Each structure stands twice: as C-alpha cells, then as structure tokens.
C-alpha cells in the first residue's frame, strides 16, 4: 500500500507543471481560445515532454505509462485548464489501438507521440444510445453521423465506431477524405466540439472483433483521466479562492478572517481531498475489468461530481461579483467543472450504474 509517486512520476509532474505555469497562464489561455483552441508551440512542447508518448507501449516507441501517469498529466491539465485536445491523446486513443495491426499501430503511435498526428474518437451519435451504431461500414466505405466529438475539428484522423457484419467495429478515417464533413461548435469551457458526417469515407478497420471491449476500456481510461483533471481544476480553484480571501479586504479586514468564510473554505478543502482520493482510486481501478472496474469508476465520478459542484459554486460565491465575470479565472474553473459534471455520465447516471452493479466494491 503506497500512495507516493515514484521519482520518475514526480519528475513528470514537476516538469509538466513548470511548463504549464510558464506557458499557459490565464491570459495565454484566453489568447489560445480566441485563436481557435490550439497553440502549436504548446502542443509541440507537450510532445517534447513526452506527454503524448506516455500511453503507448514501449514496443511501439511509447513510454509505457500507466493510469497513474495519466492521472498526473490530467491533473496538471486540469490545474491549467488546458483547452487543447489532450484527453484523446493521453487516454482515449491508445486503448482503442491495442488489437490493431502492429505495423499500423506503431505508425500511428509514433506520429501521435510527437504530437504530429491528432486523432479524435468519433463514437457518440445524435440519437440516444442504441445497441449498435447507426453509422455503418461496408466495402471499405463508412457512412453516418457522429455527434459531440470533442475537438473533432482539430483532428487529422478519426477512429470511428460503426456497425459491421452484425457487430461493432472500429475504423480509421482520415479527415482529409472527401467523404468527411465537419461542423464545429465552441463549448462553454473554451473548447470546441463537432458533428462529423461521413458519406462513404474510406475507412480501415482497426479492431479484431473486440471493439466493444476496446471502447469500454477507452471510456474507462477517459473517465479516470477526467476525474484527475477535475481534481487539478478543483485544487486550483481552492487556492485561487484562498488567495482571494487573504488579499481582498472588506469592512476594513481581509475577508479570509471571517469565520463564516473560513468554514466554507474548509468545506472546499474537505471536498477536494475526498475527490483526490477517489481520482487515485479511479486511476488504479481503471486497469481492472468488468463490474468491479465500472462500479469503482462510477463511485469516483459520483464523488467528483459532488465535490466539483461544491467547490465550483463555493469558489464563485466567496469571490463575490468578480466570480461571475469572464475576466477572472475562477469563473472559468467553475464552468469547466460544471461541464465535467455533465459529461462522461452525470451524477444520476453513475448512481444508477452503481445501484445496478451492487454498490461500491469492498
């Protein structure tokens, strides 16, 4: 039983943290959002730090990082509110490639690792969850519509889930294919998402008939990383708030000397520590399988959602008027935390799943 980071993990954390605090402060982030949501220099820098090589195995030229490394990266991304498409790169795509042809996999991994290739996972569809995707594949061509593809307009290629031969398959489609049309939309938290239309786009199959397992693995990895991201954002929100409480004066004294506000800040800290614990739990349990993994991840998301709401709302309240303006960072943390609450399954979704799976694993 050991919750300490290894020396390597600590180095990763420190170098990433330093990079982001140097290069990605609130003003820089505002500029990135204005200019379309992706800073090429930052992206290359992340690649140079090895962030994108982490999820791939060493035989594919990756760094063979595990969920703890993902957690470390995601937490720092959350702390800096990074809007670039890092989640797919560090958590979502690699699990989808596990059974792909080794040569294809090695090629994709190598290009993703240095940041030169960005792949988005086009999975969800406009209509609510069906047994099989409405998107179909036949004769090398893929057709259908995918919705809520986060960062879809920044991808060089997509991995697309589609119905094939009575089952589900995973397919690689190049963005440049003439059969691909993208409509992009900004999001509340400074990112962009897209609806992607595939109309007979050329597609190459990646899975070995194990697509559903791979998709579940990718979802688990993405959920665990998102929990860690939320912890980073909550941590930053708490410290922004305590800094504010220390410097802001009202009625002739720093407002942080009022016990009523101190106790609210203490409640935020408790919520943060409980969330941090569950993000760690999620990271470690995301490598398990089946009901145990899913129940653990649902438990984590329940805690993350509760803490995110408590911390986000309280942080804004303690900031007073400036908390609701776009000019201050805290409101952006609140907005991102709120979107995390709504995505990857909301509170009720995970409470239901927990009930169905028999509760939190012992």
């Amino acid at each position: 039983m050991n919750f300490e980071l290894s020396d390597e993990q600590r180095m990763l954390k420190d170098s990433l943290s330093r990079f982001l605090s140097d290069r990605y402060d609130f003003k820089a982030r505002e500029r990135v959002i204005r200019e379309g949501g992706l800073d090429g220099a930052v992206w290359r820098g992340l690649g140079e730090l090895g962030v994108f090589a982490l999820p791939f195995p060493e035989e594919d030229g990756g760094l063979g990082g595990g969920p703890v490394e993902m957690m470390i990266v995601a937490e720092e991304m959350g702390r800096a509110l990074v809007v670039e498409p890092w989640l797919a790169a560090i958590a979502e795509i690699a699990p989808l490639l596990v059974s792909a042809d080794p040569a294809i996999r090695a090629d994709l991994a190598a290009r993703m690792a240095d940041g030169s290739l960005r792949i988005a996972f086009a999975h969800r569809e406009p209509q609510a969850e069906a047994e099989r995707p409405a998107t179909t594949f036949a004769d090398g061509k893929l057709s259908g519509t995918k919705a809520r593809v986060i960062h879809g307009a920044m991808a060089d290629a997509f991995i697309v889930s589609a119905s094939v031969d009575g089952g589900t398959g995973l397919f690689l489609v190049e963005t440049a294919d003439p059969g691909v049309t993208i409509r992009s939309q900004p999001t509340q938290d400074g990112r962009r998402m897209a609806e992607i239309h595939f109309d007979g786009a050329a597609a190459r199959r990646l899975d070995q008939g194990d697509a559903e397992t791979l998709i579940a693995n990718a979802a688990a990895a993405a959920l665990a990383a998102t929990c860690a991201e939320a912890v980073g954002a909550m941590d930053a929100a708490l410290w922004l708030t305590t800094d504010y409480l220390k410097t802001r004066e009202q009625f002739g004294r720093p407002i942080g000397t009022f016990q009523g506000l101190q106790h609210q800040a203490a409640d935020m800290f408790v919520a943060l520590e409980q969330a941090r614990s569950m993000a760690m739990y999620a990271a470690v349990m995301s490598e398990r399988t089946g009901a145990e993994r899913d129940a653990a991840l649902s438990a984590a998301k329940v805690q993350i959602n509760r803490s995110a709401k408590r911390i986000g709302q309280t942080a804004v309240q303690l900031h007073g008027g400036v908390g609701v303006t776009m000019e201050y960072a805290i409101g952006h943390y609140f907005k991102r935390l709120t979107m995390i609450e709504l995505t990857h399954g909301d509170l009720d979704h995970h409470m239901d799943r927990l009930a169905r799976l028999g509760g939190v694993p012992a």
Partner: protein
Amino acid sequence: MDLNFTPEEETFRQEIRQFIADNLPEETRRHMSQLRPPTRDMVHQWVQALASRGWSCPRWPVEYGGPGWDAVRQYIFFEEIQAAPSPDIVSFGTNMVGPVIFTFGTEAQKAHYLPKIATLEHWWCQGFSEPGAGSDLAAVRTKAVRDGDGWVIDGQKTWTTYAHRANMIFVLARTDPHAKKQEGISFFLVDMSLPGVSVRPIQTIDGDREINEVFLDNVRVPASCLVGEENKGWDYAKFLLGNERTGIARVGMTRGRLQMIEQLAAERIVDGRPLIEHARFRDRLTELQVELKALEMTVMRVLSAEQAKGKPNPATSVLKLVGADMQQRMTELYLQVAGEDAVAWPDQDGTGPNGIMGPDWADAAPAAYFNMRKVSIYGGSTEVQKNIIAKAILGL
C-alpha cells in the same frame, strides 16, 4: 387566519392576467420562459404597454402617477408578471430611485423625473457598488466636489446592471472626505449623456454583457441633481435598499420556470424514459416545490404582518436568502434537463441561437445556471443575510 385572497383581490389578479394575455408578445413570453435575459426592445415594448395602462410604476401612489395599490395588490401584480413571464420592469427607476425622488426630492425634481421613469424615457441604472467594495456599500470612494452652482463627480462604479441601456444613473458620492464612513455621502441623479460618463461592459460567465463598469471622469452636474440634503445620501440609500422587500423572493418567477422545467423533463428521454419519471429528478423537483410553497407562505406572512403593523419585517432576510437558493436550485434542474446539450456555447459573442446540437432552449439552461450564481451575491449576499439574521433577529 385566511390564506385566500379576497374576491376583489382575485378579480384584480384576473385583470392582470388578462392584461398579460392581451399585451405580452408570445415571442417575449417564450424567450423569457427559457430564462433568457430580455432584449432592450422587449423591455421597452412591455414597459410601454404597462405605462399605457398606468401600471409601469406599480409601487407608486396615485399622486405621482402610480396605481396606488396596497401591498397585497403589488404582490399579486409582481407574482403574475414574473410568472407570465414578462421582462422585469426597470426596477432601478420604478422601485428604487422613483420612491427616493418622491420621498426626498424637490417639487421640481418630482415634476421632471417621475413622468420620465413611468414611460422609460429615463432608463435608470444604479451607481452604488465600487470596485473592491463588495458587500461594503458604504465604502464609497467616488467623490463629488462643489464647483460654482454645481458639482464635479469623479470616480468609478461597477456591477452596474444594464448601464449600457440606461441614460440615467443615480450615484452615491462622497461629499465630505473627513466625515465618518457612512456620513459625508450624497445622492446624485446623473444624466449619462454628460461629458465624462463612459460605460464598459463586463462579460459574465453566462456569456451575457448585462453588467458594466461606469466611469465618471470629472462629470459636471448642476445643483439640481443633488437629492435631499448634502451628506445625507446614505440615509436615502438605506431607504432605497429597504424598499425591496417581498419581491426579492421571486416566488412567481421560480414557480413559473419550475413548471416549464417539468414540461421539458417530460419530453426529455434519458436512458429510454422521460426524465420526469426518474425518481431522483422527480424528488429534486418535489423538494423544490415544497420549499417554494413554504417560501410563498413566508412571503405572505411578511406581507400580512406589514399590512397589519405597517412596518417592515426583519424576516425579509429569509426571503432574500431562500429566494436566491430556490432560484439557483431551479436552474440546477434546468441544467440537468439540458444535460450534455448544455456543453455547447452559443457563439463567441454570447448571442444567437444554439449551434448544431440540442433543442432551441438548450443553450439557455447553462446560461441561466451560470447567471443565477449572482443572486446569492448581489443585493446583500447570503452571508450578509445570515449576519443580519444572527444580529438583528437572534441578537448574537
């Protein structure tokens, strides 16, 4: 004890409803029911309609152009127009500066300003808050210095709602720099077209630009702009703030929107069933209904005590505190109904319809959720209300 309104009051309510049905444009109603902030035109059109009936200043006595309603009728009127829902009338004019002018102003001021409030020829905003002052409203740094027969006002105001639409602002400014904090403040009526007045919008996290900074850069105003006595401005400000009473609970608004949310939840399919059939969602809705009913009764108790005793009730703090909590929790439900469709940001300007995803109200839900965080901050934050309860009511 009788929870029923009198037949006359019920008739009055029907009259209001009929007026709303006849005069509130469907487009405005639909826009407001989605909890979107009204456009300038919507406000203008609605206030004109009210004004033509003599109802645009519902709290005013007849002698100043108001309808002369008692507190119960005022309550019914506000309940109904909030529930409709219609745009709020511009309360900075009608409920705030208007009563200050007709209570403390000169005859000339009454004659000049009051009719223009009723028609919205003067669109007022409030110049109280200053950068860095927060809940400490008496920490006024804007100063006004006598200059011949007038004053020169210099300073900065902030959190000025709808300043970009307003052409008049009432301002607290320090006229005696040596007096104690709450003394030495005066109350001015300032034309925003005067040289030196400028407005900078502040975008809020809902995407809207309804609040502003107002810069008063050595603005020269005539002596007739001073209300009442020099250095007594804090008294008028307190009077003004104390005027906002039972309306702040906004029960009608919250109830109306809850009904809309219930409808949307009946249409929204989650995991194969309408969201309204999900037990947890239903429970949250029911809990809100219960607390809202309690709040409604509390409002009516305060109203009844005021009618009976003719004085304001310190329990008003409960109305503000609970009312804010209700409004915020109502928007949490709204957000839940929108679900992932709430992730879309309408566009970079915060205007226009939702982009490519979701029903036409989906972008209004997160905007409402983010926007409503302010209601526990402004007008005496929840923490300030608790301080008031602890000290003024509980004697701690």
